[in-house]
Structure formats: structure tokens, C-alpha cells
């Protein structure tokens, strides 16, 4: 009899895990996936193009019905697991369905942070997490009204661009002085802001939201400085938080996220966790690269017990706003031993920054021209010693490997 594998969650981590596992050990497990969303597995990071009207939902589906049938994987969609009985090795869903497991994987992802201000539960306040959110936004846009997006990070910018593309008069409210300040410095932030503003989006930086205005429905966003921005739709895009409720409730060790070891094991040896819900060596991950790495690591262990320890590799991200090419990977925060190399071309609106940690690449930001992203990511993942390339590294693969000629 085959072992029973139960996966809680059907997001990107879960989808990739099952795929990798089937490749390695197609016959080892009977696999059951519980997904809270009533749909098949889709590429969540492509929701922005769906919002912008550049893609349809069908375009971003990863595993369609057929795939589950072909691979003998049971998908129980629209069923939310509400409890784990670790002694009985059994999970229970909100509809009362129970399922036994030999191995359990928690892949419950994260949930959007809803900032704690008055009015944050008014109708018309949405987050940007799943297809339902996208549909809510599109519905609001169809009426042709005003939108305020709170949060000037990747998600907020994509939401704002998508809403503007749908004809909404859109404002973006950001707490910090610079958009995407975790990735960009001031100069790049200015370039990005100009590009965002050129799409008709009004950007308010250094703006703290005091309250969401409205009685029965949202009518605006009140700022600390006393201004009120009128709004029929408010999108909260102020960050994400690992979803640990289920694991915590089952007595599994959690902190900010579900704590796992290098092999993605939780405090219960029969329960693993991957994805945005996880906390590994003190860090939580929100980018798809390390999450795929987790899926691969766990799949090897579940396949034959060997396991490859998880190491976060690809930590790159790309802003998916058509016409704005922005790519970042790695670490950018100032730290001891970190050094910046910056190319800035205000006239042509391109910018690139590489961050070195000693003789290795720690991070890279490309704005306006992201063609070299793969090359940098490779150097980053391999931990290549780039000391000898220092003077030319910033120019990318095609320009960065000059054979030099000493003084005339």
C-alpha cells in the first residue's frame, strides 16, 4: 500500500512540490491536496497582468483538471483545512472531511497585511492576493471610479498600474520617501516614480494612512497630514504575513512563520512546511525563487528520504508592469562590508546597481534594461568571486568582460 501524502494549500509552493515529487517518485504516495481557493493551481505572481487585462486566468493556470487526473493527484478545491490531529495523523476540513496522512506538508502561504486603521473593514477595501481580489478590483474598475492603493512596494505598484490600465483614477500612498525603498536607492526611486506618474497615477510618498473614510462603503483615505484622498476602492498592499494559524493551532512550533529545519521539517517529524508560511533560520521568504528551492529540497526528501538541504538561492523579483523594466535580486540593505556600484542614466531612464559583499555579488537592481538579470542571478547563486570584474561588472554580460589595454 502506498504512503499517504497530504498537502495543505494549493499555491505556488504546493504546486511545485507535487510536480517535483512526481518526477522523482511517481508511485510512492497517494497525494491529496486541499486548496482553500475554489480553483486549480495557478501562477499567483501573474495576477498583475490579469488585473492589467494583459492576460486571462486561463493563461496563468499551472495545473489544469486534466493534469491532476493524469497524475492521480486528488485536488480538493474550495476545502479549507481547519485542524490537524498529529496523534491520529489526520486533518479535518471546514466541511468536516477528514484525511489521514503518513506525511503532511503545510503550504498555507501568507496573508496580506491589513493595516490597523479605522475603517479597514469597510466594503470596498480589498487586498491583492488571489483571483477573488482581482475580480473585486476589476468589478470596481468597471464602474469607473477612483482607487487608492496603499503601499509602494512591488505588489502595490502592480496593483496601481493594473487599476490605472483599467481606467481608474488611481493614487498610490506610500509611507516611505522612496518607492520600493528596500530595493532601490533615491535615484532609481525617482526614475520609477516618474514612470509610474507617467501612467496617470498620483504618487504620495512619505504619506501615513490615518483612517479609511466611509460609512457603508469606503469613500476615501485620510492621511496624517489631514488630506483625504477620495476613493471608491482601496487596495491594501502593505506587505504580507506568514499564515501560521493552522500549524500553531496544532501545537507545531511557530514564530513569525512555521519553523523548519534545513530539510523543511517542522517540530513534528511527519509534518513539513514550505512556502511563504515558513520561517527558516530566522527568515521568511516572499519571493518565488527560494520557494521553488524549498519545493525541490522537500521533494527529494519525500521521494527517497535523502534530501538536499534548503538554501535560499534565487531571490530575484521583477516588477510586472508593462513598460517598466525593473528587476532586483539579492540583498540591498546597507551593511558592514557591503559596497555599491551604480550606473545611472537619467537621460535614458535606466539605472543599475550591484551590491558587493566582499568579493561576491550580494544584490542587483536593474531598472530600464533588465536583459542582464540572468547573468547576475547566476553570479549571485554561484557566489562567484567577482573581484577581478569589479570595474566592469556593472555593465552586464555583454559589456562587462572587457579585455583591457593599459595606458597608451
Amino acid at each position, binding site marked *: 500500500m502506498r504512503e499517504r501524502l497530504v498537502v495543505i494549500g494549493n499555491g505556488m509552493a504546493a504546486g511545485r512540490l507535487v510536480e517535483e515529487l512526481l518526477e522523482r517518485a511517481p508511485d510512492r504516495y497517494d497525494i491529496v491536496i486541499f486548496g482553500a481557493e475554489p480553483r486549480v493551481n495557478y501562477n499567483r505572481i501573474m495576477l498583475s497582468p490579469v488585473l492589467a487585462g494583459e492576460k486571462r486566468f486561463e493563461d496563468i493556470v499551472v495545473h489544469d483538471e486534466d493534469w491532476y487526473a493524469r497524475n492521480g493527484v486528488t485536488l480538493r478545491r474550495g476545502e479549507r483545512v481547519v485542524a490537524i490531529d498529529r496523534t491520529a495523523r489526520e486533518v479535518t476540513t471546514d466541511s468536516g472531511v477528514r484525511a489521514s496522512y503518513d506525511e503532511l506538508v503545510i503550504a498555507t502561504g501568507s496573508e496580506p497585511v491589513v493595516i490597523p486603521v479605522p475603517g479597514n473593514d469597510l466594503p470596498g477595501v480589498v487586498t491583492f492576493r488571489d483571483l477573488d481580489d482581482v475580480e473585486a478590483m476589476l468589478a470596481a474598475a468597471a464602474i469607473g471610479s477612483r482607487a487608492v492603493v496603499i503601499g509602494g512596494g512591488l505588489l502595490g505598484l502592480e496593483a496601481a498600474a493594473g487599476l490605472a490600465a483599467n481606467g481608474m483614477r488611481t493614487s498610490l500612498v506610500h509611507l516611505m520617501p522612496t518607492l520600493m525603498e528596500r530595493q532601490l536607492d533615491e535615484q532609481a526611486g525617482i526614475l520609477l516614480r516618474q514612470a509610474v506618474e507617467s501612467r496617470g497615477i498620483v504618487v504620495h510618498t512619505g504619506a501615513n494612512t490615518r483612517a479609511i473614510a466611509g460609512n457603508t462603503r469606503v469613500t476615501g483615505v485620510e492621511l496624517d497630514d489631514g488630506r483625504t484622498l477620495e476613493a471608491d476602492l482601496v487596495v491594501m498592499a502593505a506587505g504580507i504575513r506568514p499564515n501560521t494559524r493552522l500549524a500553531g493551532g496544532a501545537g507545531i512550533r511557530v514564530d513569525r512563520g512555521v519553523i523548519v529545519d534545513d530539510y523543511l521539517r517542522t517540530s513534528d517529524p511527519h509534518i513539513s512546511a514550505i512556502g511563504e508560511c515558513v520561517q527558516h533560520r530566522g527568515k521568511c521568504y516572499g519571493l518565488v525563487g527560494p520557494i521553488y528551492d524549498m519545493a525541490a529540497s522537500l521533494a527529494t526528501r519525500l521521494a527517497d528520504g535523502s534530501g538536499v538541504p534548503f538554501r535560499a538561492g534565487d531571490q530575484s523579483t521583477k516588477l510586472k508592469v508593462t513598460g517598466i523594466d525593473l528587476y532586483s535580486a539579492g540583498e540591498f540593505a546597507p551593511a558592514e562590508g557591503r559596497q*555599491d*556600484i*551604480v550606473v545611472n542614466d*537619467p537621460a535614458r531612464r535606466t539605472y543599475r546597481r550591484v551590491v558587493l559583499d566582499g568579493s561576491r555579488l550580494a544584490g542587483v537592481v536593474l531598472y530600464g534594461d533588465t536583459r542582464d538579470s540572468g547573468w547576475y542571478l547566476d553570479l549571485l547563486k554561484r557566489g562567484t568571486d567577482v573581484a577581478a570584474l569589479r570595474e566592469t561588472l556593472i555593465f552586464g554580460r555583454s559589456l562587462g568582460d*572587457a579585455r583591457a589595454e593599459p595606458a*597608451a
Partner: protein
Amino acid sequence: MNKRDAIATTCAYCGVGCGVRAECGSGGAVRIEGDRDHPANFGRLCVKGAALAETLVADERLLHPQIGGVRASWSMALDLVARRFSETIAMHGPESVAFYVSGQLLTEDYYVANKLMKGFIGSANIDTNSRLCMSASVAGHKRAFGADVVPGVYEDLETADLIVLVGSNLAWCHPVLFQRIAKAREARNGLPRVVNIDPRRTATSEIADLHLAIEPGTDVALFLGLLREIGVAAAIDVGFVGAHTEGAERAQRVADDWTIQAVARRCGLSREDVSRFYDLFVRTEKAVTVYSQGVNQSSAGVDKVNAILNCHLVTNRIGRPGMGPFSVTGQPNAMGGREVGGLANQLAAHMELDNPAHRAIVQSFWSSPRLPTAPGLKAVDLFRAIGDGRVKAVWIMGTNPVDSLPDADAVRGALANCPFVVVSDVVEKNDTTAYAHVLLPAQAWGEKDGTVTNSERRVSRQRGFRGAIGEAMPDWWAVCGVARRMGFAKSFDYGGPASIFREHAALSGVGNHGARAFDISGAARISDLDYQSMRPFRWPWRCGEPANETPKRFFANGTYFTANERARIVETPFREPMSKRTIAAPFILNTGRVRDQWHTMTRTGVAPRLAQHICEPFVEIAPRDAEQLGVEDDGLVRISNARGAIVARARVTEGQRDGSIFAPIHWTDQFASAGRVDALVAPHLDPIAGQPESKASVARVEALRPDWFAFALSRVKPDLSSTDYWALARIAGGFRFELAGFAAMRDWRDYAAELFALTRADRDLMLTMEDRHGGFFRCVASVNGAVVGALYASRKPLTVSRAWLCSALGAVEPMALLAGRPAGAKAESGAQICACHSVGAHTIRDAVAGGCRDVRAVGVATAAGTGCGSCRPEIERILRQAPTQYTPRPAAPAFARQ
């Protein structure tokens, strides 16, 4: 364009005197090619000659006369010159005025300048920059032969079995002669063999079967040893010596002490190498000794010349095919200047100031009111006299003494204090024109019209083929204008260069009857039309004979121009160079030319092609010295002594002897922040010739440690006055710069904005690359979308691909320019080696790595070396350095490797 439209003229540069054909197209375009019919070069040209058309630009030209920096008419300017010279002469006598002229003047210009000074002003204070390059040869020739005669002809270089190159980097300084020798060696299975005597290894050494890297200034010892060895080997032509020479015994006694061992020790050579050279010379009858500035520019220059001539005289290897001593001059008309008597110790037409009969001939011929009886001031003394106020008015024509004379800072000081300085030049701004009270625009090459004489006594027409730029006029015209205004109208009434030439030719024949070597009286009656169509001829051309009919060589009959018609074999006791190494100045400083520049770069400096070979002042230093001083290859060094200092790029090379350094002569304040090497050169003179010892001064070397280095490109010439170190060169459509600073840069953007003269808005729009920790900064500046400049800075010497950048300004995307590399990674071609086909060192190395085993194969693969051929020695060097340990095929039976 019809080939027949081409005008035959001669090259503007060295003393080889190559024939050039210039075709003028519509719109002023000029095409230059070697003249296949000219016997100096038979169609060959070197890089500089091939790039002559690129120098025909209006940039930097002096377009109008100026008085006190203000435009003036010619008549105002000439009035003032005549008045001030007349007044000065009236108040202080004729010795208080002087002309300092140039081997770049045409014979006709030279003739009238000499005639005015010596025949009408009555002073011998006319000297020429030829004093700096070949006056030792003049004096040596006169001591030995009784006349300033180069006995041989260029063919001798091809028919000889041995060529001894002494103090001559022929490959770079006289490339066409070098190519003729190289070609002969190919055709004659390695003959002539070549011995190269030079303290440093040069491009010329690449062809040499034996290179003797002698201690600087010890040539006399080497040739005394040769003279002794000739005696020991019983190779003296006793019959010839007895019948046609005098002084042989005394001269040989001086040589007695110079055993091979003594020579080897003093010259810093191995005994084996010295023996090989002596054996070869003794064994090889058909031997030519070619010598140049390394011999002449010495406080013992005349003795060096005679030490060489002695060896040819005692062996009777002179005046016969394939043998003889051969002085090669550095300027296009140094020889013409010698012929007209344009040196302070000559009179005219090979006649002497201290000879009453000669004075009578000249005075009567010129109808001159007064002739000086004593020699005038030679170049270095002339500027000393300006400095101490004895000379109060000077007219400088076609030369740049503030850069080219020794002790150049003192020369600058002298001119700054001189009451009246007139400068005739083709450029408005050089380091000398800055001190002129009156500036006179001279016609440049391609505009002026007259004759020149090359190193083998061949007189050729240099013809104008384009209209003068601005109000530029011929120098003879300006001289005659001043002469007329000084009251000598009757004697300076010439219709053009033809009438001056006829007078010069006639004078050479007066009272001659074979007594004087220089006689071109055969040309005294040629018509203006004949002058226009005159073919090159070699002197002598005596009256009544057709041109080119006399024997090619002098002295074949053993008759010399001395009183007793015997050649003098002169005693030449060895003397050390006058400057001695000291603790404060422990290096011997040698100076010289580079391949693609000429003199002070006023002409070659405008041609982008010529700036690609070497574009910055440099100092060569031996690896051991460099290590001891902490000098890094490509770092900056300061070379200094009590007289002055320069800052230059260090080139650490095995080709340099320990304790010796070399710096090029070309860089001026127009091209570098501190590159005037003559500021360091001691004004030590040969006691007979007055030629300065330009190749053996002493100096110290210090490694400099700039805070930053930078390379920059700019459309326009920026103001660099606030930059500590800079050197600039032309590129197509702009300039390139090497920069360095000794203080930390406060704001690179501000510096770039200043450099490229940007507005605030353009400054803020610059494309920049900044690596604060690594110490790198780069920027590309644009105005209205067009790139105007690029700057590459680093804490260490820059390693950007300069050759590519220079070609890329305005031709590639700004980002590729910033990266210093083309998108798509086209390989960097490297520093330019072949200027004709723009082939770089990397390309050639790649070809060698790809299997090319000789220069010909490299040529087939890359086209390098297939144009003028000047770069072949450098290709040879790359072949030798190739990692495959490839050694070029020995060009001769490998006697040097026995």
C-alpha cells in the same frame, strides 16, 4: 580624379627626402602617395608621410600677422620688424640682432635669410635648429674631407654587405631607408648584415644581427678600438693611406690603449660582442656606417664623427659602391641649410667666414656693404646672448626653441625678457609663439614652393599644390619685405623662388673650379619653366654639365677638399659625456623621437592617425631600476634635475640599460602638463660644433603616486589648467586625454562638468558609473542628445580599451561608451601598431597565436605591415614575444648566434 593632376613634391619631415605625389580633389580633399619616380623612396612612404594629408587642416594655423597679439596687416608687421631691427642695429651694432631659423625652411628662404644677415646686416648671427641635429657631422666632415660632404648615396645601403647603424633608430626616424635595407636583406639572403650600436634596444634593433647596447656616450671608445683592431688585423689600406691621407699614425697612437678588453669595459659590452663587431667590420669591405643623432648630439660629437670616418679612411672604404660613412639628417632641408651657409660659422655656398678669398667672392657677388669676419652665435650661445641682453632683437623662423633647445626653461626665460621677438610660423599657438611681439604667418607644406636637399645630396622641388590658408606667405617673401624696408631693396628684389634659386646656384660656381664640393652652377641659368618642372638632381651639378652626370660619390679618386687634397685622419681621444651621474641625479637621460611624431608635434600633432601609436609622454626605464624605485609600468614618474622637471608615463622595458632612461622630445605645453624634456637637457656643447649633448644629461627618477588616474575623450579641447597631470592627443572628431590628480577628487560630476563645459542641466543628465569604495568613476556627457565627452577615472592606472574608445566617441550607444566596450563583445584590437591599416597589438598577437610565424604571414592575416612597412619591426617584436617561443628566421647567416 585624373592621375596627371598629381603634383610631385617632397615630404615635409625627415632628411630622407621622399618624393610625394599630391592629388587635389574637389572640395580641398588631398590624396597623398609615394612618388614611384623619386629616387629617394621609389614610391614608399612611412606613416608620417602617408598621413601628410591629415595635417592639411586650418585648425591651429596662424592666419594673419599679429602685433602684440592683435591682428595686423603684413605691411604694418613688416614695417615694425624692419624698424625695430634697424633701430637696434643703429644703437647696439649688428651683433645685437639675430635670426634663428630651421631645417624646415626651403633653400630659397634660407638663402635670403642668410644673405640679409651676413651680407647686409653684417652679422653672422644666423643659426639654425640644424645646429641641434647635425652640426657635429658638418664639422667632422670638414675636419676630415675639407668640406661638408656626405660621400655616399642611398643605393650604398642596399649594395653594402654590412651596415653599422650608430646612434640611429632608423626604423622610426628614417623608416623608408630602413625599409630599403630590409627589402635588400630579403632579396640578398640576409645581406647587408646589420650591427646596431645604441644604448637602448629600439625598433631598429629588431633587424640587427648584432645589437651593441653601449654605455651612453662611449662611441668614440668603441671606434678607437675598431681603428686599433683594423691595424692589428693588418686591414689598413697602406697605399691609400700613404697617398691620400694624413695623420693616420697619430690617430692610431691614440687608439693604441683601446684593446677589446678596455673597450668592452668602458662601453659596458661583452668582449665577445665587441670582437664580433670588429671581426665583421674588418672582414667586410663593403661596409657602410650610418650615423645620426646618437652620434651628433654629444659634447664629443665631432670626435665621434671623425672616429667613424677614420675607420673608413684607413680602410679606403669610402667613395666606392656599397661603402662609406653616411650621416643621415633629421630634417627635410638640413642639407639645404648647410649649402646656403645658414649656420653661424659658415658664410655661403660652402665658403668660409674666415677665408678672405671667400669673403671677397661673396661680398662682390652680393654687392654687400659689409660682411662679418668672425663666426656668429651658435644656437645655444645665441639664446644665452638673448638671455643676458647682448642680443636684443631676434627673428625665429619655423622652429620652436622653447621646446627644442637644451635648458629649455632658460630659453623661455630669455625670450620672455627679449625686447623684440619676431616669430614666423604656420601655427598660432606653440610654446614659442607665446613670446612673440610680432607673429608672421608662414606658408605650410603644400603651400610653399622651393627646393630641399636630402641626405644623399639630392635636390628636389618641394611644390605648392594648394592655396595658402589665410594670409600666409612664403618666408623668403617676408625676409625680402623686411630687407627692402631696411634699405636693401635692390639686393632683395626677387620675382619668386626660381630667381633666388638661380642666384644661389650661380654663387656656388663663382671662383669654384672644383675647389669647393658644393657646386650647382649648372642650374644657374635655368628658366622659370625649367625650375617648375625640375627633376630631382644630386649635386654637384657643375656649369656646362648635364644634371646627374658627375660621379655619384665623392672621393672615389682619393682627392679631398683640404689644402693638400689629403683626407685628414683626426686624433680623437675619448672624452666622457660632460654630465656625470650624481647621487641627486643618478640616471643618464637619453632623448629621441617616436615613430609617428615629429619634432614638437605642431604638424603631426593635428593628425589623429599619428596619435594612435604613442599619445603620451613616456619614460623608458630598466626593470631593475624600476623595481628599486617603486616605479610601476604605466605609473607616473617625475624626471628632474636642477634645470627642470617633467612628468611622464613609465614604461618599464628590458630594452633600457640599467642606470639609463629615455624620454621622447616631442611633448610640449600644448600637449602635456609637463612634458618638455629639453628643460632637463644640459646645455653642454661640442667645443667645435657647438652642438648640445642632448642624449646624455643626468636626472633623477621618482615614482609618483597620484590619488587618481583618468582617461577622457572630448569633442573640444578643454581647459586643463586645474588638472595636475594631463596629456592630450588628437582623435577623429576630438581629443583624448590622460589625466591624473594628486589630491582626492571632491566631486567627479563637477569635475566632468568643468572638463566638458556642461550646463547644470547637462551635468545632471550625465550617464554615470560610480563605485565609491572601489574608487571608480565614469561618465558620458551629452548635449542635445549628442555625446560630447567621456571620462574614466580610477585609483589605479586605467585599464580601459583606449583604442576602441577613441573609435567609439559618437559611434556607439552611450552605455557601451561608458562600459568601454562594444555591445556584442567585439574583441579589442589593442594599441595601434599598423597605422596604415589600423591594426592593433591584440589583433596581431591573435594572428600570431593563430599560427602566423613571420611578418609576411601576419600581413596576410591582418594586413598589418603591408602598407608603409614602418611597423614591421614592432610586428617582429610581437613575434619574438609570442608565447610559442617563436624566433624570427635569422635574416643572415647567424654569425651573431655562433
